[in-house]
């Protein structure tokens, strides 16, 4: 399977969103089999299709005043925060080549996060009925996707750095009153972002290497 990996580094949400849509078009038209976009975002709150005013603890004006941007986007799920210190991953994958099953793909993304963080000797879990990945009762990874012509976009974020979680207090993440944590918080030590990316890419290749590329079905 030919996988194109694009690391945008620290990126404005809007430019990364546009990049996703460009790559999405390439994958839909079969110019590209699959892509993985990695980035960290400048502080931003995104509202998925299920987001409501009740998911915010502050007014939009107060959030803008703190220097954050807000975007209504086309992914599923509620409200979430992205910022520096968090690894955001957008897998743009044609599910014709894997399995045309939204839940299967969501569980694959959770497995990807659990395996990646397992490489750092951390035991993470799913929670019954809730999408995402947890360490004890605290959420470390959020997931929300969109699918067009059975090609996925948007994706997941993993909190890596311990000092960058304060902005989650502006919202009720995923519309719930939950605590969030980070890989560094859980380990009690610094973690190199490059090591996390390297681990995630290795795990991503493991998960998807058994694809049936070239035998697409409708």
């Amino acid at each position: 399977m030919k996988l194109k990996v694009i690391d945008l580094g620290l990126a404005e949400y809007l430019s990364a969103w546009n990049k996703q849509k460009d790559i999405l078009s390439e994958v839909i038209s079969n110019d590209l089999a699959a892509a993985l976009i990695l980035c960290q975002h400048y502080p931003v709150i995104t509202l998925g299709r299920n987001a409501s005013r009740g998911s915010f603890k502050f007014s939009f004006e107060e959030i803008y005043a703190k220097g954050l941007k807000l975007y209504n986007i086309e992914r599923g799920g509620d409200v979430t925060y992205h910022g520096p210190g968090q690894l955001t991953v957008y897998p743009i994958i044609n599910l014709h080549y894997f399995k045309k099953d939204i839940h299967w793909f969501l569980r694959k993304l959770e497995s990807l996060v659990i395996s990646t963080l397992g490489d750092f000797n951390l035991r993470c879990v799913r929670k019954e009925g809730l999408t995402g990945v947890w360490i004890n009762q605290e959420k470390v990874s959020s997931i929300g996707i969109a699918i067009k012509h059975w090609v996925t976009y948007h994706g997941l974020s993993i909190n890596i750095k311990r000092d960058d979680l304060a902005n989650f207090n502006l919202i009720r993440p995923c519309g719930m009153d939950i605590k969030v944590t980070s890989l560094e918080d859980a380990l009690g030590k610094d973690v190199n972002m490059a090591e996390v990316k390297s681990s995630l890419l290795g795990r991503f290749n493991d998960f998807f290497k058994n694809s049936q590329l070239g035998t697409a079905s409708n």
Partner: protein
Amino acid sequence: MIKVVLPELGEGITKATVSYWFFKDGERVKEKDDLVELTTDKATFNLPSPCSGVISEIMYSEGDTVDVGQILAVINEE
């Protein structure tokens, strides 16, 4: 006349919510145009038009919940 049905979206998914219609009754669509956006808990799904033609009937409004297998719209194929 082509009936556009909510397809199987995955194991355990029995319904989805109509979140956005890209077209209105009476409008002309082309095959593979985005026809309707559907939402499950953590995903949105754009259903493309299966054919080119004119939309003769939209069966569900935005915000309605639809069972898998139900007819979402009818298109007079051209």
